């Protein structure tokens, strides 16, 4: 019998908001799937498109970029820059069959531990529905 597909999600979370929320989810013992691997960045505005492309080519089934709500960014507007970049990446990656659902941008504030956990749950469910990223087992680098 085939094992159930367990997606791998790489999440770039900003130090100030979403990382705090993720931590809060942890300390509040909110259960969320362990499929997500957090990479803390100072600001979503520093997430280079290369990181996201790399994650997909390495086989990540989904990538989440999550930071402060507009107006909340510790660095004033890094999140707004990130939003444009994500718009661009979604456009490019979808050409190559990387579904837009695999690349997500969310704003999750520091006290939104529950929202963080819910987001991860929902994302895992969505990715399970669309199946694994084709790069996972292919020799594309």
């Amino acid at each position, binding site marked *: 019998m085939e094992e159930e597909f367990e997606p791998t999600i790489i999440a770039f979370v900003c130090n100030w*908001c979403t990382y705090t929320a993720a931590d809060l989810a942890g300390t509040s013992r909110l259960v969320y799937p362990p499929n997500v691997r957090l*990479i803390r960045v100072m600001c979503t*505005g*520093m997430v280079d498109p290369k990181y996201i492309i790399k*994650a997909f080519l390495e086989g990540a089934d989904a990538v989440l970029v999550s930071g402060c709500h507009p107006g*909340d960014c510790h660095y004033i507007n890094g999140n707004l820059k990130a939003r444009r970049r994500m718009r661009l990446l979604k456009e490019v990656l979808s050409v190559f069959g990387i579904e837009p659902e695999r690349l997500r941008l969310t704003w999750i504030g520091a006290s939104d531990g529950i929202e963080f956990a819910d987001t991860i749950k929902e994302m895992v469910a969505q990715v399970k529905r669309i199946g694994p990223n084709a790069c996972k087992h292919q020799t594309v680098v």
Partner: protein
Amino acid sequence: MAEKSGSALVIGAGISGLRSAIDLAETGYHVFLVDKAPHIGGILEQLDHQFPTNRCGMCKLLPAVEPDQASQQCLRRGLFHGNIEILASAEVMDISGEAGNFCATLHQHPTLVDPNRCMGCGQCAEACPVEVKDTFNAGLSTRKAIYQPAPQALPGTHVIDLSACTHCGECVSVCPTGAIRMAAADRKKFKILVADEASSVREQLQTLMAGEGFLVDTAESGEAALEKLKSEAFHLVLLDIKMPDMEGVDVLKEALAVQPSLQVVMTTACAAVQSAVESIKAGAADYLVKPFSEDFLLPQIYRFYEESGKGRQRELSVGAVIIATGCRYFNPAEGKDIFGYGLYPDVVTHLAFERLISGTGPFGGRLVRPSDRRPVNKIAWIQCVGSRDLQTDSDFCSSICCMSAVKEAMLAREIGGGQVETVIFHMDLRVFEKPFQQYLDDAKRSGVRFQRCRVHSVACSEDGARLAIRYVDMDGAREALFDLVVLSVGQRPAEDAEKFSEMLGLELNPWGYLAPRPFSLTETSAPGVFLGGAVSGLTDINDAVIRAGAAACGASKAIHKSGGSLETVESADDGRDRDINREEPNILVILCVCGDRLKALIDMDVLLDRIQTEPAVSQCLEVDGLCSPDGWAKMLEELKDKPVNRILLATCAANAYAHRRLEIADAAGLPEAAVQIKDVFPSDWFAGGAPAKEQTPYNTGYVERCLKLAIAGLKGIHWGPAEKIPVYQSALIIGGGIAGMTAALAIAGHGFRVDLVEKAEQLGGNLNWLGRTIDGADVAERLQTTVSRVNDNSLIHVHLNSTVADIRGSVGRFQSTIGEGKNAQTGHHGAVLLATGGVEGATESYGYGKSPAVMTQKAFETARSEGRIDPAALSSVAMIQCVDCREPPRNYCSRVCCLSSLKHAMYLKEQNPDLSVYILYRDMMTPGFYETYYTQARRKGIIFFPYTPEAKPEVVVPGQNGDGASRLRIRANDPIIGQSVEIEADLLILATGITPVLPGDLMSKLRAEVDEHGFFKEADFKWRPVESLAAGVFACGLALSPRLIDESMASAEAAAMRAVRMINRQYLTAGRKIAVVRHSLCSGCQLCISACPYGAREIDPEFGRIEVNPLKCQGCGACAAICPNSATVLAEGSETEMFEMIDAAMGPV
């Protein structure tokens, strides 16, 4: 002999206290930050959303220059600053001494939980049988007697609420680390004397307390009690206030004479509460009201028991004191309770609403009704509950509630996807700060409904399911149904206001708030003691932060004046500055195995094998029981002389160790940044849950991946010597009005040179034409003393008739040209303050310019002071507010005009009571205690007509339209009587507001931004209100926004404080987590320059290269992300490191 002291005491760790503490700490003082609550943050810990951004951003309080001084994390998680000592759960009992040399007595309330042992696992709270209302959630939920005080604070140490704890000991038995101390054996040593005439009471108390293990004796008379006290020592006396033979208070006094450290608790019947309060003044510890129930009494006894033995007294010697204890809120259940608060669960206060929509709130941020958890479709906000209401003794406005209601309504609409109907019942809408009018317009656009009406009462709808509100609109009385009613409750003075007033001889205003001196928002009558934030009246964040800065400035000056040092003592510990950049990453991995538990889940040998193949890992160390003091000490011991330069500690509950990172670093002789603590256990590990394998793929691979991700991160830690930039230790202030002069005096008061540049031929700016303030303070006199203090100060160099022709450079190193032509001088300054002020707005509306009878407020003020106005000769004067203001293009409130009009109107009415005065207004902006002047003006018979921008008054000037009338005629509509009215006036005074005169060219040279109205654009309106995003550039006074004289002066002091912080040392140290340019790769496309929000990058004119100003750079990485070929790299978080982390995160197959 007075001892030199370089430290300050800040009482209250809310927004204001934090700002003051950080300001002082950044400047180099040691700060004791005390709060009664077990957490910092004050009310901010409860507010996820604050206007006008509707989000938080509190982290922007952290130092932007020299960021490595403080923790770089959300402030809700905690604040770690080398110069700030946070004393939570502590209370200031006494302050003695004088400015420069205070001695403060502190009482540390016991929490019974050892923060070094508590892992925050929460098992104690699960076990605790006592459930009380959770004040953190504004009573919307319950918590246990042992609890985590703030959900996000680190470490998640629990505390015991001694007023609720029954000492049942359940928590002690479940605590896995033995962190809770509740020693039963000690109770036998705690001696209690019960003195009461009634034998029934004596017996009841004796049985009860002896049953808990205390040693109890009794006395039936005052005499007998005193006999016993003379013969043996007691810890606690429960003394009836009416003893048969003598007054309880007399017994108390004698008892304290015999045993001074004795805790005496008065017991009293309800009727005698007043005398019980008297006895507190005589030295009683507390009083309890009879009859006692067991449930109530025991926690109280335990509280005294814990306080007496373990509550620590501590004495602090400090140079200055800042009181920032905030304020309380009106309890709508008090008195008549016309809104049914406490009766209907769906009537909540605005603080409760904040918790209701908070992610950490009782419903996880879902907008539901507290009564039945059903979704909310329609919400009403009722404004001015306990404000602007003489019936609740509140002839004041609470200043923030209009904006907070607007915010909450917008959020409700946002959360409800625009489906939630929101109505705000208000009186005036007080949008008196710069961005608020636009914010209000946004709210209206987003569909928030505003109903100008005070609500009479809230009742239950007939079917009992909803809440009915009766109100009035222009068509008469109406009734509407709502799911939720939010009461915007007003302010009340801080609990401690009276205590501090007595302790320090501070004045209270008529409503019981600590009152600052005239022309100041922070100075008190006691030198060296300052008021911060809302303690002298509720403020929004912007104002609180400015006041906090001004208070810090006052405190700093006081300490400095008494000889306190501004210099910090350099840390002698070399490990903390060790340059690990020069060394190849050499990581020690420490893995806590937790007895046999970890081995039972994973294959340890395989794991260690795989970790050790990492080239950067030099050693793996297995340790056990880090959560026990023994285990921790053993681990630290192991670290000695380990030849490593980075440490990865893999444990459970990593957050519980976060505050102990420095211990590890010190033990290993490393900078703190080189130590990382990582959770590798499932999150429910400590709660005793064994991970369910079918649910979590918790296995060797999981742990390996966690560790490798952490290792990849650690490899990227760069901690080298930080760059030091020399500083010109002087300041340039542009503008010699009251703000400029105040700032100059504040900076010079710290011993630094100031160049004060004024374009006019005299100092003083707008104060030269202002007579008196509305509260009667003499402006001219104040101006004169200030000018002479400025002129007499040898450190202040005044340049009259001058402007700054050119300016270059950045924080710490500005070069300017002051004046022009041959008088030009070159200035070198470390900081620049713009105090360029503002002028009265120009207008062509309402017949201005067409008749001498139409004048502006300034013209009236000038004419009045020159004696050209004869009130006796006038019979009718009209005033129009908001002329060309509060609508595009000048869509802001000018703040001062309503008060000016009230001032002028009351003056005229006083001089000639028969004179009719009419004020045509949109919303009277009399926030805070200025409201009382509005009341007074109404009482004097001044007639107010509200108008709306859609139906503005019309003015007919004599002679206009062939009109033969000799007086001005003003036509307006009175919405209340629904009629048009015509006012014949001898004089029409127009409130045209304030426009800024900020020099745009200098601003762009300074790389500082100007807002759409020409005011200085703050780095952040809420959190960094007196500075630009370009470090080292500050503004104060009208250059920032319209403000009153005392507010201008407060902003000047706040800006001065920030400026002093830039120039008080010879060098500024750059942060280490900044971006650098690899010039060999850089193509000079300048995308990074435009991406940098801080103006930290520019083209070096000499080499044509991109240069990064390390003091300005905050390391956000916007530059690195936009750079296509990694010519810009972050010192921490480079692409190579990120790629490694992504690789590690993908983990083994």
